[in-house]
């Protein structure tokens, strides 16, 4: 099984979710994160002190899928999350040794 981690812009979450649903993926876990990269942050001011906020709000999406579904899922994500502007984010794919569904103790692809 593969784990796909995608860091995307927050307002793209809904579209990415729908795109994944279209390729048959109906389970995922999302986390609010802060991203640092080429996209530059903004300046905030507090009583005359200006400071740069480099960490921008992003959404991290984790989906574990069967090996054969990985490519489709990645495509779905990248095309839905793309705005063409800097800061669109990344997708990382890694391998998962085992998956278990807690409710039923099913394992492997069954568990997803």
């Amino acid at each position, binding site marked *: 099984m593969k784990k796909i981690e995608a860091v995307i812009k927050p307002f793209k979450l809904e579209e990415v979710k729908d795109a994944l649903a279209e390729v048959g993926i109906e389970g995922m876990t999302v986390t609010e994160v802060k991203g640092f990269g080429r996209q530059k942050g903004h300046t*905030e001011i507090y009583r005359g002190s200006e400071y740069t906020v480099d960490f921008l709000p992003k959404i991290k999406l984790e989906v574990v899928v069967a090996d054969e579904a990985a490519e489709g899922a990645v495509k779905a994500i990248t095309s839905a999350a793309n705005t063409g502007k800097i800061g669109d984010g990344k997708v990382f794919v890694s391998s998962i040794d085992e998956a278990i569904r807690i409710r039923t103790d099913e394992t492997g692809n069954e568990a997803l």
Partner: protein
Amino acid sequence: MKKLFLILTILLTLFVGPLLGQEAEQHTDAPNTEESAKTADQEALIDSETEELTDEERAKAVADKAKAEAWLEGQSLASEYSSLNDDDKRSEDYAIDSFVVSGDTAWMIVATALVLMMTIPGLSLFYGGLARRKNVLSVLVQCFACTALMTLLWTIYGYSVASSGDGQFFGDFAKVCLKGMGVDTVSGTIPESVYFTFQMTFAIITPALIVGAFAERMKFSAVLIFLTLWFTFSYLPVWHMVWGGGYLAEKWHAIDFAGGTVVHINAGIAGLVACIVLGKREGYPKSPMPPHNVPFVLIGAALLWVGWFGFNAGSELAADGVAGMAQLVTQVAAATAAFVWMMAEWILRGKPTAVGIATGAVAGLVAITPASGTVGPMGAIAIGAAAALVCYWTATSLKHALGYDDSFDVFGVHGVGGIVGALLTGLFFIKADTGAEYIENNLKGQIVSVIITIIWSGVVSYIALKIADVFCGGIRSTEDEEIQGLDVADHGEEGYQL
């Protein structure tokens, strides 16, 4: 430490010039006289048994009393058109000296509630929002504990030491534990209990203001000891000097309608001294320390603003035209300062900030405080604008240049705003009947009171901090506590479980 003396020196130098320039003038010009009389009048109301104004200079006292009587007569003429005439009629009908006017009492009970609302919830939210998340409760608890503690101290000895007796610097112990104050005891046209409680709320908010200067790094036990000492040896004597017929009232005819000197300069200087003695917060100024909850800052500022009507218009101690005008100029000065601060930021930094507009409003409120009984709307605009600009410069430039860490700009807003207000109070006046405003140079008394308050509060604060240091084995939280946050370290709680 060096910074402390540097700042004090700058301040003093700023005042010596104008002071010398004024030396020649006689100090019996109109507004001064009125004020001295008014103070005398107030004192008379507060304690009708001590009719003599001083012990030492009997001649001067007699002269002062004559002036006071003249002023009172003027008042009584004016009152043909004011609510007082009814009372005069009544006092005639019943041949009694003092009576309670229900309208004045109604207003003063509410004004008292409004001033309490300034501290809790107003100030505590304002400061709490400015703090970092890990310290929000420590700030709130310090404001609450100050409220509780000062209530007790003011009841037990504060009121007596501030308001009774005719010492130059301190009152006496005649009214300790409110001896002699019953349900029927009267002060002016309101029950003495109301006057007492109203003044109590001032005794609460003044030390609470200081909390913002040393926030996020001082041990809670040290805070309580420091504030107790400062209250006793700085708040009470300055009160007595300015409002209790003491040194500044009697000799310098200081005009301080609602507490620019007694409250704001007094607290602002204490804050400056405390933050310098304590040293900077860990990471300051390298790490940004933005407010954790700006909406709280704005609600807090809004409650301060609304409550300030009680503070300023309440200081008239009656529901009349002076109170009405005090409320008006308070509103106008606050709005002007908020607007000017906002525009200054917009022009100088490119964006008007929420914290800025709130801070501007508070600066305007501070500056109008001493003037709120004597100034008109156009004077209020001038005072508000001046306060916004000077405080903006202090909080955003001077502070960084001098490098002290006044966490929430207590000195920058209350100290400096109070000084601006106290000085300009000596310039702008309004005529009662026509509303015409005129400029009058009455700066000398104002400058002297500012200087004396700065020195007095500065010295007392320094000593009080040293005493607290001895009692608490250091007044500063440990580095670990500071990193963890004072909420958990001092109070065993976290602000939010969101």
